[in-house]
């Protein structure tokens, strides 16, 4: 009895030490992922006087005070935020409806619809951008705000639909049948029973759509024409020198994103 326990205890001690090693590794990996973010935030406070914001020259809040001094940068940021909000609203409605149908109903064409979703998720961004540009070239369509919006809705629909589909597939149909038996019409049933049940999927799909849209660079570059969004402006400015306002805006978007994520996580915990 003791003869078998001893080696197992030693093994457990060895496991604990390798666990510590992995713990240190995980923390270092996360630090590595966060390092560039820290650099970005730090250089938003840099008291630089040259066009290149590369060397640390002291602390200042100047860039926060003069955040909107570059009109074209401000326009780009406004474009990014409005496109993200509009495309998220459209995508959430279209994607939720499609995801719900795909998750709960069997109908002809369901396989094809799922295939298109999978293709849209796997398709390289350059190819999507190139395809949309080809369409604009073929039909002589002007590129700008509307084409960016259409493209953003296109590439995020699949993500919302897949998230909602997963949630809807796990629902117990008996709950809705019960609602129907109790005399609820289709709309009441959807509003009071189905929607609350799939809500976590809808919310995470919408958040994903927003993040995808506000961060998109490649497809926006292909469909934007003269209209510039925040990532495009940043990309263009790397050649001539990036003003510290970019770091500040990046920091603010980051802060809002983290805040929203924390709040929605808290609400989920409370609901449970």
């Amino acid at each position, binding site marked *: 009895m003791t003869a078998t326990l001893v080696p197992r205890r030693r093994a457990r001690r060895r496991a604990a030490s390798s666990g510590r090693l992995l713990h240190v590794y995980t923390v270092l990996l996360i630090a590595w*992922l966060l390092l560039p973010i820290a650099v970005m935030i730090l250089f938003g406070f840099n008291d630089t006087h040259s066009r290149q914001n590369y060397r640390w020259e002291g602390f200042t809040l100047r860039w926060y005070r003069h955040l909107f001094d570059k009109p074209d940068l401000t326009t780009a940021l406004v474009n990014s935020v409005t496109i993200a909000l509009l495309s998220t609203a459209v995508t959430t409605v279209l994607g939720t409806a*499609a995801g719900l*149908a795909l998750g709960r109903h069997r109908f002809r064409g369901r396989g094809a619809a799922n295939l298109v979703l999978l293709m849209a998720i796997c398709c390289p961004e350059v*190819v999507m951008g190139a395809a949309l540009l*080809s369409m604009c070239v073929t039909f002589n369509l002007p590129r700008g705000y509307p084409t960016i919006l259409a493209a953003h809705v296109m590439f995020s629909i699949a993500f919302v639909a897949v998230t909602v589909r997963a949630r809807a597939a796990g629902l117990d149909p008996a709950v809705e049948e019960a609602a129907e038996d109790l005399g609820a019409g289709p709309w009441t049933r959807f509003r009071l029973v189905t929607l609350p049940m799939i809500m976590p999927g809808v919310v995470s799909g919408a958040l994903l759509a927003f993040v995808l849209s506000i961060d998109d660079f490649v497809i926006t570059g292909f469909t934007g024409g003269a209209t510039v969004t925040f990532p495009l402006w940043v990309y263009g400015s790397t050649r001539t020198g990036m003003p510290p306002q970019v770091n500040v805006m990046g920091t603010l978007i980051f802060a809002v994103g983290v805040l929203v994520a924390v709040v929605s996580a808290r609400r989920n915990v409370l609901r449970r």
Partner: protein
Amino acid sequence: MAGPTRRRAAPYLMVLPAGLWMLVFFVIPLVLMVSLSLQTGNLVDGFRQTFHWQNYTDGLAAYGDKFARSLWYGLLATLACVALAYPAAYWIATRGGRRKPTYLSLLLVPYFVSFVLRTVAWKLVLTDNGPVLGPLRDRGLLPADAHVLDTGLAVVSGLTYNYLPFMVLPIYVALERIDPRVVEAAHDLYASRFQVFGRVVLPLSLPGVYAGVVMTFVPICSDYVNAEMLGGPRNTMIGNVIQSEYFDNSAYPLASALSFTLMAILLVVIFVYARALGTRDVLEAARR
């Protein structure tokens, strides 16, 4: 009220708006891209359909090395992602305890910063006099002419950095799903720690690795922002070529042919990969 006909039509009506959107802005553009890839002409006189298949052979002949480099960088960065992500995902899934969500969200936090801005910041970290190379060089730990920017290493490191969380998540999900009783059973049967890992945990987590590879390899191979910002003119990937053929040269047919070739190559690679590993595993993993 809701007659049987209306009920049968319901799923179609729900899929219709999204389906139309995907048809008009995804499927039809892809078809038009293929059509454009076979045309000849220029921006001034317009393009005409001539079924000019040479766009494809010309593209491959001129940029075959860029395709090869993209696949090579994609392979290196994907392998680096697996090697870096697995231990962390393993630790979080098995020892994370109550802090699991915290560690996972810390891994995802970089995604709240724009992809372009993240790459700019990474460039700042890697510059010759930056916070990493500067001190190392000042202390004589690196030769004075050592530099990372404008090398293939910088591009692969940037790609790895940008896509790493996509690899951690599926591996974590697969590890998390392993029934702890299976691991206990292996211990009870006197398997050594290495045997438990090699013969129980690792095989059960492989679907997560497969899914992670599919999710990172395709976007990494077609990325051009990292190559542009970190690699300089000598380490360009096929994405850079496509972008400049469209925007600098307005060579729309050639650029379309290159885009379609890229998509076809990636599809074939993924298909072969799925076949080699058993299609079901990969498809199921991708569906999660």
